[in-house]
């Protein structure tokens, strides 16, 4: 439903109500949760919180809520408004498959609510109620704790802390103790093994964006263009602004960036990695203000570690990164947590959005990206020699040649970015490889190469692609290669012309 700007509270509620009962109700509501949506433009942060809380409380009435879970999780992790936290807590109970990260987010919310509880009626706009018997935001979150404690592992130390919070009544404390007891019945230690990947794989506008005109100003008041800030090496880009009032967002982002900086230095990667913090609030955040803010949070500035404001082309920057931010006038009224990793061409290769990231997680991503880059570099350096070797080894039999090529193609896959997403290609090559081996086996009457390569294909598809095991990928590839080599070196010289003949002359002639 199209809306002309600006949205009022009433129009927002009307639009939300208009999707009720629709087949795509949840996806329409989730679209409304996007921070950059027009629904949140030109209104105060308080009003944005009311609108998002209302939407989350409507979503909580749905039987199933998996599409909205990233928003629910982020709200629990970063919000400090009791009403929002209560609505998000309730919405979490609609998850069909909660994970430990959901539990961690809920525990964070409980620590906030322990200090800032309030009465709430989630059926009323903004949750307002004067009823002294009404439930409270903390009570809603504790009910969710009861629910989730049966389903996911929770941090026992944090649970103990929550159980000791003075704001809890005896009955509320019992809920926490029951959650602790439920955790003790779970087998195994608390770990985060079952959480979904932190990294989002959202597509980004890249080459179509008009970035030539973008200008940044750094901490030294030097004007820079896009390339000088974001090209040439792997770059971490985080967004923030100094007037953010939520300590779990911008302040924490910069503090963690400082920590990441130390990890990069400890790994001796300063020459390979650039870290950049960009302000959303380019008119207020002057270089002096930005420098002071990041310095106070432990982020050191130099020519590889920059704090920037956009002086020209702000819209292009926001479009390129699909920033989740909105404004009232020039003041940011809402934004999500977001961090991006760009390769040396300035293309986004990782993004950490909507969830609390740690410096260690980003560092891990950086090391993966840098390692893949190093392998590509070594690959291209080895290529001339490798091709020469390959040509020498290449059998003259076209079937075996095709076998070789399919194996080579398979070997080249891991060198590509996001290669696990190319699993149909890998599967196709595997099948081709086995097909050609089978054709060769008809000539040579040797079944071993097909069996060995077939086994390799099964290992690649099963533990390798389905479960992401790189060890399995290595073993599977080795078996496929051995099978291919067996087929080549097992073929007798007298069979070669026959092989050519069978390929070139159609059946029946």
């Amino acid at each position, binding site marked *: 439903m199209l809306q002309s700007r600006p949205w009022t509270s009433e129009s927002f509620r009307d639009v939300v109500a208009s999707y009720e009962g629709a087949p795509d109700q949840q996806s329409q509501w989730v679209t409304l949760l996007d921070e950059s949506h027009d629904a949140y433009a030109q209104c105060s942060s*308080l009003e944005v919180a009311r609108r998002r809380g209302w939407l989350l409380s409507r979503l909580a009435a749905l039987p199933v809520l998996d599409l909205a879970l990233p928003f629910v999780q982020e709200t629990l992790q970063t919000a400090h408004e009791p009403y929002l936290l209560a609505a998000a807590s309730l919405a979490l109970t609609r998850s069909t498959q909660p994970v430990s990260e959901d539990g961690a987010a809920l525990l964070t919310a409980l620590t906030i609510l322990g200090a800032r*509880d309030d009465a709430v009626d989630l059926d009323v706009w903004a949750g307002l109620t004067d009823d002294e018997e009404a439930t*409270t935001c903390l009570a809603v979150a504790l009910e969710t704790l009861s629910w989730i404690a049966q389903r996911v592992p929770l941090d026992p130390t944090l649970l103990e802390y929550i159980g000791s919070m*003075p*704001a809890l009544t005896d009955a509320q404390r019992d809920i926490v103790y029951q959650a602790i007891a439920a955790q003790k019945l779970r087998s195994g230690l608390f770990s985060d093994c079952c959480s979904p990947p932190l990294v989002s794989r959202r597509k980004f506008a890249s080459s179509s964006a008009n970035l030539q005109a973008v200008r940044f100003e750094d901490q030294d008041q030097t004007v820079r263009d896009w390339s000088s800030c974001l090209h040439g090496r792997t770059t971490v880009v985080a967004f923030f602004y100094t007037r953010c009032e939520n300590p779990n967002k911008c302040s924490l982002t910069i503090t963690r960036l400082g920590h990441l900086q130390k990890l990069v230095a400890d790994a001796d990667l300063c020459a390979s990695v650039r870290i950049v913090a960009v302000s959303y609030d380019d008119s*207020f955040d002057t270089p002096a203000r930005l420098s002071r803010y990041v310095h106070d949070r432990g982020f050191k500035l130099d020519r590889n570690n920059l704090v920037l404001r956009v002086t020209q082309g702000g819209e292009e920057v926001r479009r390129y990164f699909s920033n989740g931010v909105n404004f009232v006038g020039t003041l940011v009224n809402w934004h999500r947590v977001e961090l991006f990793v760009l390769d040396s061409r300035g293309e986004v290769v990782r993004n950490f959005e909507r969830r609390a990231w740690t410096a260690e997680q980003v560092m891990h991503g950086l090391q993966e990206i840098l390692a893949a880059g190093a392998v590509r570099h070594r690959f291209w350096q080895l290529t001339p020699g490798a091709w020469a070797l390959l040509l020498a080894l290449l059998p003259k039999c076209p079937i075996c040649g095709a076998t070789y090529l399919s194996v080579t193609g398979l070997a080249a896959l891991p060198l590509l970015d996001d290669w696990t997403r190319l699993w149909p290609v890998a599967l196709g090559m595997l099948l081709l490889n086995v097909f050609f081996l089978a054709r060769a086996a008809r000539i040579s009457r040797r079944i071993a190469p097909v069996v060995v390569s077939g086994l390799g294909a099964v290992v690649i598809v099963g533990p390798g692609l389905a479960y992401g095991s790189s060890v399995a990928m290595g073993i599977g590839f080795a078996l496929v290669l051995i099978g291919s080599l067996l087929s080549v070196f097992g073929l007798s010289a007298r069979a070669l012309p026959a092989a050519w003949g069978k390929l070139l002359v159609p059946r029946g002639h």
Partner: protein
Amino acid sequence: MASLKTKSGAQPATKKSAQALQRRRAAVRKEALSHALDASRTVAARVKALSVVDVLEDVSVFSDVLDVLLDGETNPLPLRLAALECLQAASFREQQFAPYRRRYIAALRRVCKVSDLGLRSRVIGILVRDGDTRTIDQLLDGLRDPQRGLLPPEKALQLLVDSIHSGVYEVAKTIAATPPNQAARREALRILGGDTESTGYFADLLRNKSEPVEVRQLAATSLNQLAPDRLLAAARDLAMDEAEDTDIRSLGLTALANFGDLSALRSDAALQTSVDQLSAAQAYDGTHLKTAAASFKRLCGA
């Protein structure tokens, strides 16, 4: 009413004596509470009694003091104010106060509507500083529609100066343009000191001689925060304008001396001459302008 101090004022020597002192203090506080609730006593005595009550001692003590605050029919205003002070002091002990916080905030919200402006103002101030969104919204409503105002506009704006994400900029712009009174206008301008869209407005205000000096000074402070280069651009003109108010001229000189480019200032012959003339002129003896000129010469003299 017995005193809470030891006879000599010193620390108790043994554990036993410390426990005895604790018991005596608890008894004194209990007695104080009963005095505070005793309507037959004078208001002054009841207020004094409340000053030694510890609302965190027991939930019943907290409830009793809260009731004193809430009951405007039987309790005189000074007693209600004393109860508020007692509760507010306890709220600084965050950990111990946590179980009582929700009831405290709910009570304060009810007291927002009392007729006495002093009590209302204090309570609203506590709520706004606590970040209570409901109260902040009520203040903004009152600024948009004076019929619904809980406080005078200048007081409401004063309380909202740190709530920049509440939507106060929009309201402040309206009040700055059509102010109900000059105090409200000044508070609105103070708030807009963080609004980058108001930079041009402040630059115009600073140069506008028909504006009161205080408003022009506010404009200078805001410009220094929002666009220091524009302040410096205006400062030179203001400092050299002999028809300008002396306070504004001294503001210009001070801005240049503290934030200007030193080499540019030292090589600005016209400015240096003007400051020399100011320093020599007896007409300005004893004024801020003379002091500003002396400071400028010391920091930026050629």
